[in-house]
């Protein structure tokens, strides 16, 4: 019996050494320092959503909470793409928020359920799913991205000319040596759009306020070449774009989102959001 108990003890210790954390106070205090004037790495959360997807408002709320915590370092982008029963229009949900570019991104990165998102498109692999994350994981992923090194700083300005033409200028400043090419994407998003949304309790909210809605890409879906390897700190990159402005968009609610990514793994190195003047 002694030997039995000894064996049992050793066996159990081997596998049960890990214990259990019991939490009494679930909330953390203040989060990151957002007072720094130097540009730091920002986070683009591409939130794949639909106005007939009842859990999607929860994802939108998660972005709002992160913006409250981290300010302008979190940039949300609501991409209405996914299964038609979540994104198609009907009499109750008449606004078509879908875009061809959103559909193209959804198809390329390969998902068919909502809500789901990508945080700076980290961890992409052709056959994997590591780049997708549920909204519940966005705080953790955002926190990790925010703590990571800034590899290129961006500046941009956007102006609407003659009410129909959008002119954008962008500049990039490598902060570390970059041994791969860079691509740049420019798009327009709009917030404060009131339109019906299916809610988590299965009811329709006719006065729902949609935030960060992808309106259009100024570049094509996969952007334009922005820099060629190698690049080092001190280099200055620049590119200008001209696109069309839809007069139904409200400038005060719109913003131009500019991001630079590594075209070999789609990882977004930096993203900024600038007002449309």
């Amino acid at each position, binding site marked *: 019996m002694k030997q039995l108990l000894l*064996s049992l003890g050793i066996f159990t210790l081997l596998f049960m050494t890990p214990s*259990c954390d019991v939490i009494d106070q679930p909330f953390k205090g203040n989060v990151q320092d957002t007072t720094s004037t130097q540009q730091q790495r920002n986070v683009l959360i591409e939130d794949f959503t639909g106005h007939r997807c009842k859990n999607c408002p929860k994802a939108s709320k998660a972005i709002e909470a992160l913006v409250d915590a981290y300010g302008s370092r979190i940039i949300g982008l609501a991409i209405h793409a996914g*299964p038609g029963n979540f994104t198609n229009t009907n009499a109750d949900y008449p606004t078509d928020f879908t875009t061809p570019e959103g559909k193209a991104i959804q198809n390329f990165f390969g998902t068919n359920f909502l809500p789901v998102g990508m945080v700076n498109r980290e961890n992409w692999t052709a056959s994997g799913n590591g780049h997708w994350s549920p909204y519940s994981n966005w*705080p953790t992923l955002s926190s990790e991205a925010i703590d990571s090194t800034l590899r290129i700083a961006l500046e941009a300005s956007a102006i609407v000319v003659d009410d129909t033409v959008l002119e954008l200028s962008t500049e990039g400043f490598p902060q570390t040596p970059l041994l791969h090419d860079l691509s740049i994407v420019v798009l327009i998003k709009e917030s404060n759009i009131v339109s019906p949304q299916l809610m*988590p309790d299965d009811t329709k909210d006719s006065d729902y306020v949609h935030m960060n809605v992808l309106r259009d890409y100024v570049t094509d879906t996969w952007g334009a070449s922005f820099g060629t390897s190698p690049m080092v700190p001190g280099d200055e990159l620049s590119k200008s774009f001209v696109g069309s402005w839809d007069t139904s968009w409200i400038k005060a609610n719109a913003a131009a989102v500019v991001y630079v990514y590594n075209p070999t793994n789609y990882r977004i190195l930096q993203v900024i959001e600038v007002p449309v003047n």
Partner: protein
Amino acid sequence: MNRLALRLLALLLLPSAAIAQDSYGGQLHGNFQLDGQWYLRDEGIDPTGEFYPDERFLGQGYANFVYTDGDFSGGLRYENYQNVMLGFPEGYRGEGITYRYLQFKQDNLDVTVGSFYEQFGSGMVFRSYEERGLGYDNAMDGVRVKANLAKGVYLKGVLGRQRFYFEKSPGLLRGVDAEINLSERWHALDSLGLRWTIGASYMSKYQRANDPFLVLPENVAAGGVRSQLMKGPWVLNTEFAYKANDPSADNGYIYKDGNGFIANLSYSKNGLGVIAGVKRIDNMSFRSDRNGSTIDMLVNYLSPTTEVHTYALPALYQYATQINGEEGIQLEANYRFKRKSKLGGKYGTLVSINYSAVQSIDKDYVATSNDTLRTLQGYYSDPLERGTIPYFHDLNFKISKKVNRSFKYNLTYLNLHYNRSVLEDGLSDEPMLSNPENIKTMDADVIVLETLYRVKSKHYLRNEFQLLSTQDDRGSMAMALVEYSIAPHWFFSVQDIYNYGNPDPDQQLHYPLASVVYTQGTSRFQLSYGRQQRGIFCVGGVCRVVPPSNGVSFSLTTSF
């Protein structure tokens, strides 16, 4: 050890090993399956084309290879999804070796390294398994040790990560299970006719946490105790499990602990079989990724207390276990009237009745204004109080009778209540308690008549006639199926489901499906053409949604 090294070498050189199996006495076995479907655009079942795949043809398959030589075995599985077929989880993208292991037994130890499936008790604390039809696979990748320490004393230890499609879960699992067969150790019990086994298990997961708002437990533990007592025709199984604070996407990031209880009592003697079961689950979602959803990375398995129907129409409304909380009962009785008795007839008659009901558990939610308590506790639940939201009930009767040497039939009646808000829309209890008028349900009466007729030697004709009568959801449906099989090679089948009661006249559609199967030895080839309506496919209380489709599908399986 040299022999072990030789076996390892043989496994690494599998083709050679197969040839050299006589030298080592080992055997190589395997099986292969390939499924594919060519999808046709069908505006009747999918008016907007939302389910119509861009690829038009989708195919997937797998092959298992297992080499065994005495106490040593090893194997691997190759899987390909190019691309994954409609209705299977989208996470399956690509191809590769997803399962590989080496295993040996020595000195009362059974050691496995690599991939393995394992289960503690009924699985309330831990179950790693695969269900191909669902696309479910949470295989462990790590180390498993099983030990027989003394007579009647069995231990298992596992350490590893779970499969997450072609990747691994972010959480690490480590657990131990002990089982003691008391009757083997104390013969006094045996002499009393008692066979008693007790067990206990513990599982802990570790997942890194870096949430900016919440202090998340990185180590979460669950444990359980169980007992199986048998005496004569009686068997009593009980199991209780407890899980410590585990805020997750499933439970809305509350820190409440979880618990579950299952008990089953059965009696079987002289043609009479009775089973009574009760289950209660409270916040027992346990995944190796706290952000996981649907059927991804589940650590435990909560067995259903409802009957799983295989007939097509009742199978449209299967129950899926609600891991956040449910309580249910199941009662089943069957009796076989003896041959040559008044009710048994010449060949005997089997009559069975099954009743199962599942509902919400009692939940007294903490007000949202009390942030901390709401997050820590979520809700209070009294296990002695019954929940008020019915999730599901199923009352069914069956008669199985062989009339003569050539003809037998099964007649089944079912009465179903199905909470669509819970089981299809995934609504939690709180909004349903607030707005009970918004709960969507489906109540139906179903009749199924299945007949099997032996036309002549090796020729069989099987028919099914099903009727599902309801005013809810998609309305009433009728189905007829004819199967003709010529043993051992051919099998032909034609069926049609007519959704004549659909409230939308445009959706009062027929769903015809024709199949032919050819079997040769251990190989089987199936070709089908027709429509499949949307539904929910479940195995053991775990379910996935199947979208509507139309097209030509084939399946090839073989083994060696």
